[in-house]
């Protein structure tokens, strides 16, 4: 099994990735969010726990996501995060911003 080279998540995009992940799924717990991002990025984007949980707390505080306690398949207590209406709006804003920024970067990188 070949392990792809892992990359740090570019600064400022972690919250967007989490929001998008939650938008595409049913409520997930922290580990599942990290796993989803890792798998969907084909093993490139590794979310560090050290940034994941503070980010989740920040987003809880800003009311973008909600956390509800539930049980895992192994019957362990876990906090499942889901998107709020405010979070959905924030996701749209961030996607918009990201599109503009990456377009701009692409324009600069294009061969003349």
């Amino acid at each position: 099994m070949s392990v792809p080279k892992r990359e740090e998540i570019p600064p400022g995009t972690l919250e967007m990735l989490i929001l998008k992940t939650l938008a595409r799924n049913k409520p997930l717990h922290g580990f599942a969010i990290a796993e989803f991002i890792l798998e969907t990025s084909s093993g490139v984007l590794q979310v560090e726990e050290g940034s994941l949980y503070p980010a989740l707390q920040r987003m809880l505080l800003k009311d973008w996501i909600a956390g509800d306690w539930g049980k895992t398949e192994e019957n362990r207590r876990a906090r499942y995060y889901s998107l709020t209406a405010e979070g959905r709006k924030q996701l749209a804003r961030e996607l918009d911003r990201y599109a503009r920024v990456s377009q701009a970067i692409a324009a600069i990188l294009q061969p003349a």
Partner: protein
Amino acid sequence: MKLPRRIAAFFHREAETRALREEMQLHVELRARKLHHAGLAPVDAGFAARRQFGNAAVYQDQISAIWGWTMWERFLQDLRHGIRMLFKAPGFAAITVLTLALGLGINTAIFSAVNAVMLRPLPYPQSDRLISLWEENTQPRDQRFSSSGTSVGSGGPVGRTTVSPANLADYRACAAFEDLAAFDSYPGNLTGIGTPERISGEAVTWNFFSVLGVLPAEGRPFLAEEDRPGANLVVIVSHEFWQRRMGGAADALGRSVMLDGNPYRIVGILPVGFQSPQEVALKTPSEVFRTASYSSDLLTSRGDHEVNVVGRLKPGVSVTAAQAALSAISASLGKQFPDSNRYFRAAIAPLRDDLAGKVSQSLWALLGASGLIVLIACVNVANLLMVRAAGRRHESSVRMALGAGRLPLMRQLLTESLVIAVAGCLAGIVLGRLLMLGLTVIAPPGIPRIESAGMDWRVFSVAAVIALSTAVIFGMAPAWQASQVKPVEALKTAARGTGGASQVRWRTALTVAEVALSLVLLVGAGLLLRSFSTVMGVKLGFQTDHVIAMNINLPQLRYPDGDARWRFFQNLEDRVRALPGVVALATANRMPMRGGWSSGLFVDGDMENEYVPDFQAVSPGYFETLGIPLLRGRSLTLQDDGKSLPVAVVNQAFAHQLLHDRDPIGHTMQRGADAPRISVVGVVNDIRRAGKEARIKPEVYLCAAQTDLYPTHLADFAVRSAGDPRALVNAISHEVWAVDKDQPVTNVHTMDEIVDEAVSERRFQTLLLLIFAGVAVALAIVGIYGVLTYSVNQRLSELGIRVALGAPPRAIVGLVLRQAGALIAAGIALGLAGAYGLTRFLQDLLFEVKSTDWHAYAGAVVLLAVVAVIAALIPARRGARVDPAIALRQE
């Protein structure tokens, strides 16, 4: 939105932290399982997962910071630490908290009284627009007419009189007022319901209730046409009257009650707890309100100043503007009616200020004094905090050496002062409440609204602000001190608990301030005490013991003229004279200190010079009953009656002021050009008829039997007894009822009680200020004792060496006392300056004592110096008894 969420999260932060730990734990386990599936051994997988996860504690700190908890947590930590430290030093904690509580408690109690009497709005809608209106006599003092009738608000300047209803009609035209209403005390004899009783009431103009903004709860206010002579007799009663006397009968409206022998129809019942402005000042609930129905004579006679006036300003009109408009009116009245109005002008003041009147001066003075006590208490607390900070120098140094910042160190000490301040504040409020209860019990009658003094938001916020500023201001100095510690030096001096030179300077300064502040209070108390003893030493000129006085107010209906009233009292005198234990008895319009009457007078037919002495109509027993010695001529006798020559007795002041010390006997006087001439037949001793603080005035004693000579009503009856005069009250009342079964007897007091009540306010002030001064001196002594004990302990080894080298104990005591002496002298010098500056505010409360009276200053200085030196002697003697061996070993 965010802030509440943060705050809510703060209270759940322990649960949140646990939740986070659980989440992270799960994360690690799930990762370990994944690694295991990928082929790692379970143990290695666990290690790898944890390694990858990193330091969970750091994440938690980060998260804590995200929620903004850090500051709070530090504060709570300081708080817990502070509380723990205080519990470790219970003596220190108790003394500081108690000191603060004492200062705050006294302040809270006095402030709640000030609040109740002067600050809280009156119980009327938009009461800030209500004003009190009176007239002032601007005539030079020596020829002034003076009315001894009481008026609402005792605070006016001399020359203040009630208002003439005729002038009132003109004042009402003033555009600054929405309306003006008049009211006056008008008690009535209530019959037909139980035993006859005299109840308080008022005669008011029909618009009285609408000016106050109060409508009857049942029925209606008066109509304009009911406020005329000869109109239907109607009455509005208080809620209490309706409940207590009519059992709250549902059909009370429209029913009639018998007042002064006439049926009055009830047209309105006032709301619960209604107080008329009169009551706010006098405390006696008015039960019945009748229309004033001024006669047309009164409404044209501008010289009759008879009624109290309350008014409502138009919205947006200031008192100053209204006064200006009113002054214009009274000036034009003065031109139009020079005979009656030349010397009179109308004045107004906010109703609340006017009601608080003279009381406000003494309350402000007491508030100022209690403020000084708070200052002293704060200085003491600061002193104690400094001792404590010094004791913890070592701790501070160690902590700083280990890397603690100055700021956190200061913050922690400040938090400790805050804990003390909050505890002191709470204890102070409780103590203040208790003191307030005590205050209302010993408060003299006549302080309006004091019985309603309590805790409201104003009182609480003042206490809290004082406590918190104490904590910050007086906690700052020691905290700053502690943060200036140089760890290396402090640790090198192994002896713990030395404060260094700057500490001693600070504490000396604080103690000097304490001595100074308490001297100010002592001087103030001394001045009041001297005034009080001066007042108590004043001779009234008559004998108050064994005399009982009562009011027997005969209604106009059954006693239409002076002859009818005199016959009643003659009859009563004959019956009461026969009672066992009666030594002497008298009838008069008013007994001394119960009001009176004064009027214009011409002597020996000289109609150019009008004098205004006091007049009394008295029965022959008057001088014997009151123990007023006859100096010359003869007294009034039963032979002087309506058929004989008009006669009168005068006092010495009359002879002195009106007759320039000529012998009055044989001179004649008359009250008007066509009035009968009255011959002076005797001279009696001067008395202070209006009480100890009043001036001696010329008096004319008319013969009660010569009823044509005086317009006033006979109403007071007094008896001198062999034993306790109160024992006679029942028997006298029965004799009254034997003459007239419907006649109430009211206002029954022994003369001693009346005199006592007259000085009760002064006694109250003096007592409170003495207590305050006592507390201040006690606190100052604690301060002096503390600072000297501390300094002696610091110099123990030095003193030990001196003793070892042969210094006698006297020399050691002298050494310490010299230090104390400097401190006390500095405090006294400062305090004298402060007292000189501050006691002038007491001048209005003093009686025949100047605010610079040297006796009070000298007494205060001597007392404080002696007590302070005694406080200093204790540590001084301890210093002298020091055992050199022990003292040197401590080094």
